[in-house]
Structure formats: structure tokens, C-alpha cells
């Protein structure tokens, strides 16, 4: 066999763009990514068709404020977000579990750009998945929407927000989950923390009938973030808290702040810790 220097190899400096390309290759080249995304998207038509057609029989008796089309069309979000949060956590924790992080960081020894590139790929993936999910969900519900006395009308501000808030919400919540994964560096701990927060901590805060706790609950990540995708009349499909203290965009801002805080801690730890 020959030596490495058969041809002179062109090697260029590491840039953020190149790191993003690299992370994109990494994301695409894992079979598990495609499974997760397929499942996440599939929840949308599944739930949207199921819930819309279940309304067909009762729509005549329901009052119109409970017939908000986008709420039914996007109801797959509750489960899709879990899959995408899981994917976000594992994308970073698997680097540590498998040792891949040593390859990643030797190629990008300044570290933070590598984390940023991975975050960007995760967030854009969540955004795209949410968008596709919403559209597929809409298509799946379309045949029965009329019979259920509902519409999806993107010229209505609320409908627009409910529909396109879904990809935005998913982008923010996966960024938060990614940050938690980057802090904990363990798939089990990361997934348990994110699910624990969504399924145990947040409901606990909001269901305990004590005002201060419920106040705090309003500011927890999914409760706050889901304000963006809560119907003024029907509330949200995903959060236990029905508080309306925060406006839709304030709530989303609070979720972004949670994500930013988690990512900041992750960044500081990444700089400090041995890989």
C-alpha cells in the first residue's frame, strides 16, 4: 500500500459553515434520525384525522368556540414534541456515549462553534419537521373538517399563529432539550429530565391548588411556550397550565429564555470540562 501523500490534499480552515455541513452529514447519516422524524411527522396526520373525525358526530351540538380547526389539525404536537425532544437530547448525548465527541472536538477544538452548529441543525430539523407535520396534519383533516363544522383559515391571525406557532414552538423546545442534554451528557439522564419536567414537574406545579405554585407554573418551559399555540377559547393541547398571565409571544419569549439559559450553562461547561 502507498503512503498518505499520494496527492496533496486541500484542507481548508474550519468555519462555522463547514461545521454546520459536518453536523448535517452526521444527522442525516444515522438511521435513527430518520425513524424519529418519520414518527414525529406521522403523529400529526394520525391525531388530526382521528380528532377531527371524532368531532363530526358531535359538532352540531358543540358551541363554536370549541370548534377551532387549527387546534385539531395540530393535535399531534403533544407526542411529536416528545420524539423531537428525545432526538435533540440524544443528538448531543450520543456523542459522549459513543466517544464520537473526541472526533468532533479534535476537528473543532474551539468547541463552542461545534455546539452551535449542532444546535442549528437540530433546531432547523425541528422547525422543518413541525412545518411538514402541520401541513400533513391539515391535509389529513381536510376531508372531515367541513363535516366537523371547522375551518383552517390562515387569514385569521389566531389560526395563523396556531398553525405556524407549532414549528416555532418545536424549534424552541428542542433547543431547550438539546441544552439539557449538553449539560447532562447522558441520554438516560437527559431524556428523563426533559420528560420529567414536561410530565411530572410542570403538571405538579399547575395542579396543586396553591396560587404561588400556579404562578410559577406559568413560567415553566412548556407551559409558557405553549401559550404561542393556545387557542384563546380552547387553550392548549400540551400544557396542564391554562393560565393566561402571559400573552402568546410573552410565553414564547419565556420558553426562549429557558432554552438560552440551558444553552449558556451547556456552553460554559463545554469550555471547562474535559471531553
Amino acid at each position, binding site marked *: 500500500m502507498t503512503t498518505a501523500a499520494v496527492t496533496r490534499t486541500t484542507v*481548508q480552515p474550519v468555519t462555522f459553515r*463547514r461545521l454546520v455541513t459536518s453536523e448535517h452529514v452526521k444527522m442525516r447519516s444515522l438511521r435513527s434520525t430518520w425513524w424519529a422524524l418519520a414518527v414525529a411527522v406521522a403523529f400529526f396526520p394520525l391525531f388530526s384525522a382521528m380528532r377531527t373525525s371524532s368531532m363530526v358526530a358531535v359538532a352540531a351540538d358543540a358551541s363554536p368556540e370549541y370548534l377551532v380547526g387549527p387546534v385539531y389539525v395540530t393535535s399531534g404536537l403533544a407526542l411529536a414534541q416528545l420524539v423531537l425532544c428525545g432526538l435533540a437530547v440524544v443528538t448531543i448525548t450520543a456523542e459522549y456515549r459513543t466517544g464520537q465527541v473526541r472526533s468532533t472536538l*479534535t476537528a473543532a477544538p474551539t468547541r463552542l462553534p461545534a455546539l452551535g452548529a449542532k444546535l442549528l441543525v437540530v433546531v432547523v430539523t425541528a422547525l422543518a419537521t413541525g412545518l411538514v407535520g402541520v401541513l400533513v396534519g391539515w391535509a389529513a383533516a381536510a376531508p372531515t373538517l367541513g363535516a366537523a363544522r371547522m375551518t383552517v383559515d390562515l387569514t385569521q391571525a389566531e389560526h395563523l399563529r396556531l398553525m405556524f406557532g407549532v414549528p416555532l414552538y418545536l424549534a424552541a423546545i428542542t433547543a431547550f432539550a438539546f441544552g439539557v442534554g449538553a449539560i447532562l451528557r447522558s441520554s438516560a439522564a437527559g431524556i428523563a429530565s426533559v420528560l420529567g419536567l414536561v410530565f411530572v414537574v410542570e403538571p405538579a406545579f399547575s395542579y396543586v391548588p396553591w396560587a404561588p405554585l400556579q404562578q410559577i407554573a406559568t413560567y415553566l418551559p412548556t407551559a409558557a411556550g405553549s401559550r404561542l399555540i393556545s387557542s384563546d377559547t380552547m387553550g392548549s393541547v400540551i400544557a396542564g397550565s391554562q393560565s393566561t398571565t402571559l400573552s402568546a409571544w410573552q410565553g414564547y419569549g419565556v420558553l426562549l429564555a429557558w432554552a438560552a439559559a440551558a444553552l449558556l450553562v451547556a456552553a460554559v461547561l463545554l469550555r471547562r470540562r474535559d471531553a
Partner: protein
Amino acid sequence: MIEAHRLTKRYGPRTVVDGMTFTVQPGRVTGFLGPNGAGKSTTMRMTVGLDRPHGGTVTVNGAPYARHRAPLAEVGVLLDAKAVHPGRSARAHLRALAATHGISNARVDEVIDLAGLTSVAHQRAGRFSLGMGQRLGIAAALLGDPATLILDEPVNGLDPEGVLWVRTLLRSLAAEGRTVFLSSHLMSEMALTADHLVVVGRGRVVADAPVADIVARAGTSAVRVRTPETARLADALTRDPALRVVSTAADTLEVSGADAPTIAAAAAGAGVVLHELAPVQASLEDAYLQLTGGEVEYRAAAPDATAHARPTSGAHR
């Protein structure tokens, strides 16, 4: 070129790299030797910025690793632990790595070919055998055509063809003027591959010299004597308590503590006929064991293994 200056690393209360200072020069293969736990892998990880030193500095080609704008062109590294996601194919792994430096897919296929992985490049790395994984790691190290190579036990798990490949590859890379720094526990392989050695024990450098010097320093360790009358010769020789005599075959003795003329004189005095009288040159292994005898941290409990780690008191090969 790799320059470590008073490099120090602690894990909890334990100092595992303790003020190491050494320079790895370009144009030759430098071996990194030391007992288990001596701090070799830790030093290599610090060199490529994965672990943070508690003190001292280490630079590669004149700058700290993280300062290089295209680090993979400066240093190719193979670490002792796995550094590949098992769910990704070998080709995808290398393409992702290549993408960070704008390296072409053609170069990826070139290193795959170089490492002999072409037929399995589409397979998930998790299915790779130890040696195949090692080849993938070497392919990754070569990807950026680096000026410096740092390889932690590269021949670990390789078949004889692979061992030979690594040896010729590293020798030719050094001949091109590159810096090659590798650790290994295989002394015979190291003797064939390396020109220079940095020997460490308990986190400290105990020797930094050309291989030939290190072997020569260990000296002639014994004299092999062949005679039909081994018993009589052994009796004659062991009258001097400073001499140690070991029978290595029915007609062969190995004598340490005396040179050939002394043994010949003793034989003549006893009227014993000698068929062969030959000084036995110490091997790199002997030299290494002498150097690190006091530095071994994890010593096997068996008495013969203990004797092995203190070659002066036992049999010679």
C-alpha cells in the same frame, strides 16, 4: 513537532501527568513508552486539547492545538478509546469529519482505500472488528494529510499485514519530514518502528533518547555459553557469588555478572571445553524493563511476573 513543557494533569487527588517536558522532533518516529497508567494517553489527549492541563503547556507545530485554524492538517490523532458513533458508516463518519475542513469526498475515499476499508466503508462502524475500527481511526488521522501524527497504540488489534502496513506507513511519513509520535506496549514492534523514545513512568519522563542509546545503555546483559559439561562449568563459575548462572538449554548456560574473558578463564581453569561463548545484547524490552522497573504502578502478583519486571535478578533471554 510536539513540545511539552512541565505538562501536568490531575484527576482528583492523583497527579497522573507530573511535569512532563519533552520534544517530539519531525523527520523521525518517536515512540512513547511507559507502564499502564503512566499517563501516555492523557498526555496525548492534552496535546489535542481534549483534556485541559492543570499546569504547563503543550504545543503542536509551534502553537497550542486549538489555535490552529485547520487543526486536522496539523495533527492527525488516533486515541486509545473509540471515537466513532457506531450507527454511522465508516464513509459517513469520515465525510462528516472531512466536511469540517472542506476536505473532498475523493480524499475520504483515498484514506478508506489506504486503510484497506473499501469493501466495508458502507457498513456501520458498530459492526467493525477491533482491527477494522483501528484502521478506521488511522484513516481518520490521515484525512487532513497532517504534518504531525499522534497515535495511541495504533497496532492494537491489527493483523500481521496491518502491523506491517502501519510500520511502513509511519516510517515513510517520518521520512517525508513529518512528526510521528506513537505509543505501544509491543517492544519488538517499537524497536522496528521507532528511531527515538520518550519513556515515562508515573507521569514523569524517565528517558528521552534514541532507541539505540537506550538499548546500549542497558548494556550487555549476559553471556551465553555452550558446553557439553554445563554442570562442571556452572560449579566453577558459581564459586564467585557475584556471578549468576542460568541454564537455558541442556548444553547452554547464560551467565551474568562476568564478561566473556573471565568466563573463558574460569572454563580453562576447570578444564571445560567451550563450544560457544557469546555476549547477548540486551533487547529493547530488557532496556525498557530496567528503566521502568521502579515506576510500574500495576504489577502482576505472580512471583515470576515480579521477577520479569526486575530483570537483573532473574533469567535473561
